[in-house]
């Protein structure tokens, strides 16, 4: 075979690999990076069972490899996967009627960080037709950094209802983190920064405006 044919074949093979990259084959390839046979098998069995239960498996595989990176043993990884699946199933109910895999993963992280469940369903109610991954992420980060969960939930919900965009919320979060680093309490920082963003929003913004992508 000439080098040229060889390379064309290689190109074709790479294309085929890229097409299937989102499929089961790619996931299996990632599981193969778990060196310990016993751990890999337990993870594989868990992931397959979850697939049959209708749970998105991508976040589970990612969490398993995260466990490997943190040098967790097989038992701990299995516990983490079970906990994540439980949270994702709860997230699916909270985000009903529909949610993307990214939203499910974000909401599961929110639950793990003690964001009130009602806050998550509130966000979905305000924006039923667009992805709210960023909004959930901002809420999670605010709570993780010490803002009282009920206060963070109210602030984010009100901002969204008034038409604040995901970008504005991300910037609000960055500003709060900066203030906290300078010694302001997380609560004070959030109240102050929320007032700042509110002042930028059009006063007559309706719920419709909040649903803008």
């Amino acid at each position, binding site marked *: 075979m000439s080098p040229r044919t060889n390379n064309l074949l290689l190109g074709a093979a790479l294309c085929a690999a*890229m097409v299937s990259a989102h499929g089961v084959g790619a996931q299996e390839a990632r599981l193969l990076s778990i060196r310990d046979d016993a751990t890999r098998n337990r993870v594989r069995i868990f992931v397959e069972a979850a697939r049959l239960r209708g749970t998105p498996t991508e976040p589970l595989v990612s969490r398993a490899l995260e466990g490997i990176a943190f040098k967790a043993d097989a038992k701990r990884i299995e516990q983490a996967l079970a906990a994540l699946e439980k949270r994702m199933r709860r997230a699916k109910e909270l985000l009903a009627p529909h949610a993307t895999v990214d939203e499910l993963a974000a909401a599961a992280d929110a639950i793990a960080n003690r964001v009130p469940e009602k806050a998550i369903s509130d966000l979905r109610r305000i924006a039923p037709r667009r992805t709210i991954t960023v909004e959930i992420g901002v809420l999670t980060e605010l709570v993780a950094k010490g803002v009282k969960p009920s206060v963070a939930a109210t602030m984010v919900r009100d901002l969204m209802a008034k038409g604040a965009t995901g970008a504005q919320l991300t910037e609000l979060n960055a500003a709060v983190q900066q203030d906290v680093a300078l010694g302001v309490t997380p609560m004070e920082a959030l109240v102050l920064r929320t007032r700042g963003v509110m002042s930028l929003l059009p006063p007559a913004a309706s719920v419709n405006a909040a649903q803008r992508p």
Partner: protein
Amino acid sequence: MGLLRGNLSHTLGLHREPVSEFDPTLPIRAKHGDEQAFIRIVEFYYPRCLRFARNMLGSDQDAEEAVQDTFVRVHDSFSRFREDARFDPWLFRILANRCRTTMARNRRHRSLIEYGDIPQTATAEHEIGADWAEEVNVVLDSLPADQREAFLLRHVEDLSYEDISAMTGVRLSALRMRVKRACDTLRARLGERSEDDRQHGGHNG
């Protein structure tokens, strides 16, 4: 396999930390739309391209702009990249063309530079060896552009004469002559200084 031939020896530049080797499948993957593969190519070659452009143009700003443009062009022209071709010469051909464009533009605008304007030059930061680097840059700038280009591609970027010839369309004998003339000039103008350094123990190249 043509694809693999000789790529690695060229891509690891003289002073690059060999922290990673260039994966020769990256250009093919990038050609077929893999954005992450394109990012890896840019990351791998950016420093080397920037070095060539800076040595060629003598200005940090012009060099950065030329390299940024080069990669945009690489992306736009991937459909023309033959999968059995080697990547380095193809990339450097686009980069060298882009540098020539900048030099032509600068020649056109040179008359507009008023007295008192200080053109930004590519002098190294002042440290041990900075004087020598400055002198080298001055002499390099004074070389005709085709000699400078041939010298840099051959001696600094470590490309073979065959590759340079394929890239530039210049015959091998003419290329060798350009490199030889460049070396002669560099020796004639820097040789004395180099000798001084050695005698005074200031060997700081």
